[in-house]
């Protein structure tokens, strides 16, 4: 797809809403369109976190392999959301598996490319942080609620 098409898709994606034109153009240089069939893995735990994904269509299950239980899904992520925050923090490795539950269309962002651009332009880096930190905080709060097991017998 041509860059201007990607640029438009990025700008329309909820995650990049409000990002100025120039920054959008810079970010776009690290982006490409990808698709995954149902059952295909976007990434696996332990692999380098060299990309993250902006979902445009479909649902992705985030899983942890539990001995004796198989893959346990602890979260699903859908259209308009992002998959992957480990690209932000050293050692840049995935700590869980991400599997397409159905056909997934997404924008894959080259993490090394974006990290380099954020280092070179701290305004852009701050814009990225403002977008990723709420995702991290939300996931932390949601995890807290899940750990409390509020629907269990002692909930």
């Amino acid at each position: 797809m041509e860059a201007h098409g990607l640029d438009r898709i990025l700008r329309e994606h909820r995650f990049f809403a409000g990002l100025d034109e120039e920054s959008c153009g810079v970010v776009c240089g690290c982006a490409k369109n990808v698709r995954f069939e149902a059952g295909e893995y976007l990434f696996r735990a332990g692999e380098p976190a060299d990309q993250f994904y902006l979902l445009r269509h479909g649902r992705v299950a985030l899983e942890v392999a539990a001995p004796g239980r198989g893959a346990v899904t602890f979260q699903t992520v859908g259209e308009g959301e992002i998959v992957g925050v480990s690209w932000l923090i050293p050692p840049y490795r995935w700590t869980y598996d991400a599997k397409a539950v159905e056909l997934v269309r997404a924008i894959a962002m080259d993490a090394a490319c974006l990290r380099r651009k954020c280092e070179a332009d701290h305004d852009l880096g701050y814009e990225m942080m403002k977008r990723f930190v709420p995702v991290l905080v939300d996931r932390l709060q949601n995890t807290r609620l899940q750990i409390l097991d509020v629907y269990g017998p002692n909930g």
Partner: protein
Amino acid sequence: MTIFDPMLPRIARTRRRRRDGPAVWTLDIEMAEGGPPAFAPGQFNMLTAFGVGEVPISVSGDPADPSRLVHTIRAVGPASTALARLGPGEVLGLRGPFGVGWPMEQAVGRDVVVIAGGLGLAPLRPALYRLLAERERYGSIVLLYGTRSPEEILFRRELESWRRRLDIDIEVTVDHAVGDWRGHVGVVTTLIPRSAFEPSSTVALVCGPEIMMRFAIASLQDAGVADDAIYLSMERNMKCAVGLCGHCQMGPVLVCRDGPVFRYDRIRSILGAREI
């Protein structure tokens, strides 16, 4: 007209019992004499397992069906376990209905977002029956239901049947899943920003564990729903059910008499208080 003493249990019998999840049973009850008492969605009855104890249980059946009274019970303590074990024809006591129910009339003409967590779907089911029976009186109807795992989804067949209707949005999420579950995984609050409703004209009905309700309130506020449009069903240790004994006191309110359904702005200051 017969007047019943609210402190005296009437004799009732279990007509039917079915399993609705791990340790969760739904009982269809009929009165030994006369028909079942009429109730408003959100009200509860005090059910007695004779020789064991009495517990408050919300009505989970259809308020428009006068032929049976339905309660969904999780077996957690001696009384609820004894009630949940009652087979067809076995006797129990019933007082009620008691309390203030869901604001069905205040919701007319507005979007209605129903947020249920775990067994909290049971007290909300009568409201859903009413909303669907009088569908034309309301705007968009959204049901967001969160529970522990796919095996613990309450009223599964009914949810599937409602989902086939084109006039209600239903989303179900579980805290964790293994196997072939293809639905949402995550806490119920994650469904709120993804749902289609007009916050300024929405009434939200919320029932579930108190911690889940606090998170749900925060998400509804983030979405733009006003505090006076959020209603919660509270659970406390109700004993007399008529506002005399004070067991269910929560600050200045008695949950059995003033609730169990409260408008959020009226209990905001006491919700989550550590010493209550």
